Structures are given as structure tokens and as C-alpha cells.
């Protein structure tokens, strides 16, 4: 059986094409920052980015001009405030116009679940009392064929590529994760291709009968990338750098400062290890 182990740059080059619909998931925990940076380095354009919570990684990708559309449900810097680059794109079309497809968490979770299950749409008792359906034509309704109740419907999300970060994988490509899992499994099963970066690649995953495993046959590529979720975190490996999230507010507030930081730390670094080293220099 062929190994699915590759490098991150090869995985991005092979699977993330200009114009693709790409979901980098991870709910606060396990956000695949290294993969997002590699997409920026490879200069992808016109991506349709999907994520429940865009977080700093999408702030960076949007600010660097990778995206033309964003599907999301909560776009802030958690506990800190705005995502300035996301706001600049929405409010002033800088560096490029960004179409937004805005949902609620429940709606995106249902849409990923439908995508994972191979269904064309999801039903939920959601979007009640909100103006969102008036600004998003993808929020529709369906009538229960038994009770007649009208419910909300959203189209399934099936990203061309989903990218996750996890604790570990084996050489066949089986991936194990634990801790907060958000809608990562659903985003993984919903995807046409699945790239996973991991803290470590092992010969055999530790036994975990009911553990959270992504089976190898849904995984397209696995790349080891220590620290690949930083400044997000990896349970039992490293903590969330809350102080970095707080500092990001100032870094990203102005266009020039943002570009300088991205050039200095992301573009000038050939990979994630170099990126982390560059942060250590200024620490």
C-alpha cells in the first residue's frame, strides 16, 4: 500500500488550485496555520474559502489576496475584536473584492454534515427571526412531508479540498485527533480531497476503540508539520498563544504593518519551522 506521506508544499501544490473551494477547519483548536501560510507562499488566487470562524489564518489569506469568496458564520478575533483584514476586504474591497456567503454556526455545521453524508442539502430548524435569509439566497426552506412544518434548508458544503491539522497519523494515512473537534470530521468527509498536517507520523496509531480517526481512504495526503497549528493549539502538545491573538490586533490594523509582518515572517520563511524561528527572533 502506497504511503500518503508527503511534504506540505507538495500537498498544497497538488491539491489546492486557483479558484478552488477550500476549507481549512479547526474550531479554535487545531487550526492549520502552516497550510494556510503555504497557500499564501504559493500565491494561490481566487479561492472560495470556507470556515465557520475565519480566525487569523483567513485574515492573513484574505489580506494577502488569495480569496474572492468567503463562506463563514462568525468572523472575529475571538475575545479580542475585529479581523481587520477581513473587514477591510468587506468594507473597502482591499486588496480585492470579497463576496460573502454568511450563515450561522448551526447552518454551516448542518451543511458540512450533509456534505459528509453525500446529501445535496441539510434541514434545520434554524435562521428563525434573523435577517440572514434576506441577504443570503442559499438559505431556503423545505416543508416536512409528514407534519407540514416549514424548516430552513442550506446546500451541502463539499469543498474541493479540506485541510486539517491533527495530533498524529500513521504512514498509511490514518489520522487520529482528540480534544475540541468542532465540525472537522464532517468537513473532512465532505471534501473531494483531504490534506492533513500532523504533529507526528507514527508507525501505528495508539489503540483507541472509539477514538476520533479519519480513515486512510478518505485522506489524500499527510504531512508532518510540528507546530503546524501555532498560534492556535494542539491538545497535549502546545497551548493556544492567546497573547499572540491579542498582538495580532495591532499587527493587522493597518495595511502597511500587516504586509510588512507577512513579508518578514511568512513570505521570507521557506517553511513553517523557519516561520516559527522568525517569531522567536522578535520575541
Amino acid at each position, binding site marked *: 500500500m502506497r504511503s500518503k506521506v508527503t511534504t506540505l508544499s507538495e500537498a498544497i501544490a497538488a491539491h489546492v488550485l486557483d479558484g478552488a473551494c477550500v476549507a481549512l477547519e479547526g*474550531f*479554535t*483548536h487545531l487550526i492549520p496555520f502552516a497550510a494556510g501560510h503555504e497557500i499564501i507562499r504559493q500565491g494561490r488566487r481566487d479561492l472560495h474559502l470556507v470556515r*465557520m*470562524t475565519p480566525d487569523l489564518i483567513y485574515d492573513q489569506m484574505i489580506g494577502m489576496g488569495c480569496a474572492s469568496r468567503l463562506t*463563514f*458564520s*462568525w*468572523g*472575529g478575533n*475571538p*475575545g*479580542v475584536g*475585529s479581523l481587520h483584514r*477581513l*473587514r477591510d476586504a*468587506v*468594507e473597502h474591497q482591499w486588496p480585492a473584492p470579497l463576496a460573502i456567503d*454568511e*450563515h*450561522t*454556526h*448551526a447552518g454551516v*455545521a*448542518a451543511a*458540512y454534515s450533509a456534505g459528509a453524508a453525500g446529501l445535496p442539502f441539510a434541514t434545520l*430548524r*434554524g*435562521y*428563525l*427571526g*434573523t*435577517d*440572514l435569509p434576506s*441577504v443570503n439566497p442559499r438559505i431556503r426552506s423545505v416543508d416536512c412531508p409528514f407534519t407540514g*412544518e*416549514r424548516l430552513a434548508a442550506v446546500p451541502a458544503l463539499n469543498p474541493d479540498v479540506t485541510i486539517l491539522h491533527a495530533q498524529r497519523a500513521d504512514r498509511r494515512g490514518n489520522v487520529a485527533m482528540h*480534544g*475540541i*473537534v*468542532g*465540525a472537522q*470530521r*464532517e468537513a473532512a468527509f465532505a471534501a473531494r480531497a483531504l490534506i492533513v498536517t500532523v504533529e507526528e507520523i507514527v508507525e501505528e496509531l495508539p489503540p483507541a476503540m472509539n477514538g476520533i480517526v479519519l480513515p486512510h481512504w478518505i485522506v489524500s495526503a499527510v504531512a508532518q508539520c*510540528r507546530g503546524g497549528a*501555532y498560534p492556535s*493549539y*494542539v491538545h497535549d*502538545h*502546545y*497551548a*493556544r*498563544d*492567546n*497573547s*499572540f*491573538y*491579542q498582538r495580532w490586533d495591532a499587527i493587522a490594523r493597518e495595511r502597511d504593518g500587516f504586509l510588512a509582518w507577512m513579508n518578514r515572517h511568512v513570505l521570507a520563511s521557506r517553511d513553517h519551522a523557519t516561520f*516559527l524561528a522568525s517569531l522567536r527572533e522578535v*520575541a
Partner: protein
Amino acid sequence: MSDWTRDEMMTVAAARQLRDGCICFVGIGLPSAACNLARLTHAPDVVLIYESGTLGTRPDVLPLSIGDGELADTAACVIPLPEVFGYLLQAGRVDVGFLGAAQVDRHGNLNSTVIGPYDAPRTRLPGAGGATEIAAHARQTFVMLKATPRSLVAQLDFRTSGGFLEGNGARARTSMRGTGPQSVITDFGVLQPHPASEELQLSALFEGTTVDEARAATGWPLEVAATVETIAPPTKIELETLRALHARTREAHRRPVRLPA
């Protein structure tokens, strides 16, 4: 001058709304502080649920994000997010939803999406997250926000989450399962819905605040309930617990994280 701030009083007043043992869906920020203060004082058996899937969590410091590792470490269990919204919230298995917002209108509807027009916003806010469905399905909701005429508004720029909609029973005619916002806790006191019109009225004031102050901070002509309770000041234990929680939190969030190597 009192020896507590209005922010502290607001948090204490909000915490007191939570009954022990209730199942509470917690928003980040002010609600998170209030819910944990309740847990650390009069409600040790309150079950706190964060939308990251951490159930029955007992954090020692307040999380900065809705999914800090602290929440998972101290949780009774961690479940996937689709189950949080499906099996718990939508299924009616949450007693209280505790929300913040940028704007609240007189019927308890919330805006956390945009200031200005949606297509050309003056300020783009984070958006709905879990709020829309929390507001719809939790058996009741509490809302916390600092009051100014720009936050307690006559007209929302965008309705992110439904409260009593247009009031007068409009909500009950929808499929929203919960009873809506039963208290809006501000930094002058508490607003509660009139039983018939469902318009928010002043129902309680903090010690040292006045009806005039409340009216000045409200963007619609604020009605006053038949009796306006005066909320007792924070007890020594409430204040010490809250300040210690905040001190631990500041310290933890300032602590440098060793970069992974």
C-alpha cells in the same frame, strides 16, 4: 463612590440570574465571566456548555476564545459541534442561553452582524456564530451589554438573532422553541419584557443608578415597570471571586507560550 465598578455589578447581577443545576449555553466575553462567577459562588452544579462542544466545563481561568484548551481539559466531555447545535440546542435540551450583542432593540432582538447597510457596512461585526439558534431554542435567554443609545437602539441595523420580533406574541407564532430574552442585564440595571407587549422595560436598578440615567442610556423611550427593584450590591464573596477570576485570567493570557519546536 462605591467600592465596585458598574462592570463588576453587571457581571454579578447577571450571575445571580442563573439557578443552580441549570443547563447553560455560554457566549464568550461578558456572559462567560458571569456564568463562571455563578458556578464559583451560588451555582456549583450549573452545567456550562460552550459551543466548541465542551460540556460541563469548569475552567480555572476565563477562556479568551470559545475553544481554549482549558475548556476541554476541565469538561465532563467534549462532543462534535454538529451535536451541540443539533442534539442539545435544537432539540430543546438547553435551559438558558447567555448572549452578548452589539445592539439590542426594544423587543429584545439582537444585532451582532453589521453597523450600517449590509452591502456597504460602516462596521462589519463578527456575525451570528451560535447566537441565532441560541436565541431561538434555549428555553430562555439572558442578554448582557453595556448600555448606550447606540447599543440599546430603536431600530437595529441588522437583526442577527430574534428576541420577541415585533412583540405582542409574534415570537410564539414562529417555530422558535424558547421563550425569548427574559432579562437584559446592562451596566445600570436590568430590563425585562412586559408580559403583553413584550417590550423591554426597566425592572431593576443597581444601587446608585437612577431611572433618568437608564433612560439616557436607552435609544427608545424606556418604560418603567410597576415596581423597580434595587439590586443589592455585590457581596464580598462575589467581588473577591470575580476579581480573583479576572486576575488569574489576565495572568494566564499574558503568560508567554513556548513556541513549538
